[in-house]
């Protein structure tokens, strides 16, 4: 026995035959609900048939392509890509400029460098040197110097011990001692010669030997960070 839904479907699909068809059509004529149900079935089936036999999928592909092309034209894309690259670079450049500006103000030009712990190699000396680094960077220059003096005694040719030792006097504003120590290093050919020259010039300015300071600063080439600091200090003095 077919259900009402099966009969409706068979009727729409043209599969009801003979007496079954006649009986269904009689029922339709007398049952408005069944008639409404059939009408709705036909409408829905017609919609399904139209939609499923359309080219909507292909159309959507073309619409998507057109929208993508419209939203990201090649030219704009390139310029946007360029902006994406340039904006961080410009932002970084601005930060660098600001940092440079503040780092090169007059007060910072006289600041001591950070004593780098990784400079020294050699397991035997590492512990003592690290203590010196800690003292130096915490501005305990006397304690740092005590250790550096011991290290210099054990290795009299080590210029970096002597360089930081000289700077401990600079940190204590003992200008005469710092100048005496730094002059030796600045006259030498070690990797600390340029740094020593700079801090020697700074120490000279503190003792009103501006002329000597200027002469030293002019010797420092301005192709790196130290050179830029020297130029800045030079301009301040001039």
């Amino acid at each position, binding site marked *: 026995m077919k*259900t009402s*839904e*099966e009969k*409706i*479907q*068979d009727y729409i699909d043209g*599969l009801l035959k003979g007496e079954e068809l006649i009986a269904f059509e009689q029922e339709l004529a007398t049952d408005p609900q069944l008639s409404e*149900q059939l009408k*709705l*079935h036909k409408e*829905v*089936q017609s*919609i*399904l*048939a*139209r*939609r*499923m*036999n*359309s*080219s*909507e999928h*292909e*159309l*959507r592909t*073309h*619409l*998507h*392509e*057109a*929208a993508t*092309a*419209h*939203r990201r034209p090649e030219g704009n894309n390139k310029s946007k890509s360029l902006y994406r690259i340039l904006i961080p670079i410009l932002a970084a450049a601005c930060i660098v400029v600001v940092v440079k500006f503040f780092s090169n103000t007059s007060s910072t030009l006289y600041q001591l460098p950070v004593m780098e712990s990784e400079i020294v190699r050699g397991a035997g000396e590492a512990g003592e040197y690290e203590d010196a680094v800690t003292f130096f960077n915490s501005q305990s220059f006397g304690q740092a110097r005590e250790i550096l003096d011991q290290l210099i005694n054990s290795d009299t040719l080590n210029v970096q011990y002597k360089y930081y030792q000289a700077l401990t006097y600079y940190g204590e504003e003992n200008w005469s001692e710092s100048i005496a120590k730094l002059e030796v290093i600045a006259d030498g050919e070690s990797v600390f010669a340029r740094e020593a020259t700079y801090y020697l010039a700074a120490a000279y300015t503190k003792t009103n030997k501006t002329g000597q300071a200027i002469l030293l600063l002019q010797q420092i080439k301005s192709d790196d960070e130290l050179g830029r600091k020297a130029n800045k200090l030079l301009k301040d003095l001039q």
Partner: protein
Amino acid sequence: MHVDQRYLAYLKNNDRTGIDKIYKNYAKKIVAMIVYNSGTEDDGYDILQEALVDIYYMAKDKDFQLTTSFENFLLMVCKRKWLNALKKKQQIQVTKSTEDLFHIEDESAKEIAESVQQVEKENMVMQLLDTLGERCQEIIRRCMTEKHQEQIAESLGITYAYLRKKKSECMANLISKVKAHPYFNGDIDF
């Protein structure tokens, strides 16, 4: 025939060059309108795409004839779709200002609205189809797109009689969902 009827033909024929022209000439305005009315740029492009699909069906199935410019027509379709989207999202209540946005001005606009309403009703049927089980969806899709149901039954590994039975069950399920839908039974105006 309105000079802008060609835009409907572009969609009906899936003409990629013509579709590019539609985007070039109208996308900016449509997106701006959506953005102005609480939407985003992505909303704008989504609404535009769905509106163009609707217009495709109007052109294909109804041989719809433009009585106004394509721009006005497209704007109207997009406005209706955006209002429906807002209602669906329940992001905003329909206020007088938004009703003004969708104000229908004349008889031709009413005709357009009726055509759009029919397409939206069809969209709803297709959305309800997607809520059926996968097996039902497959049976209905194949029965609508393939001629020989005996072959469908064979490829599905079922008898022809069982396929007929399942098809009527699946269609009955879909019909009941359609009847229950507020858009279809008139509880909600399009």
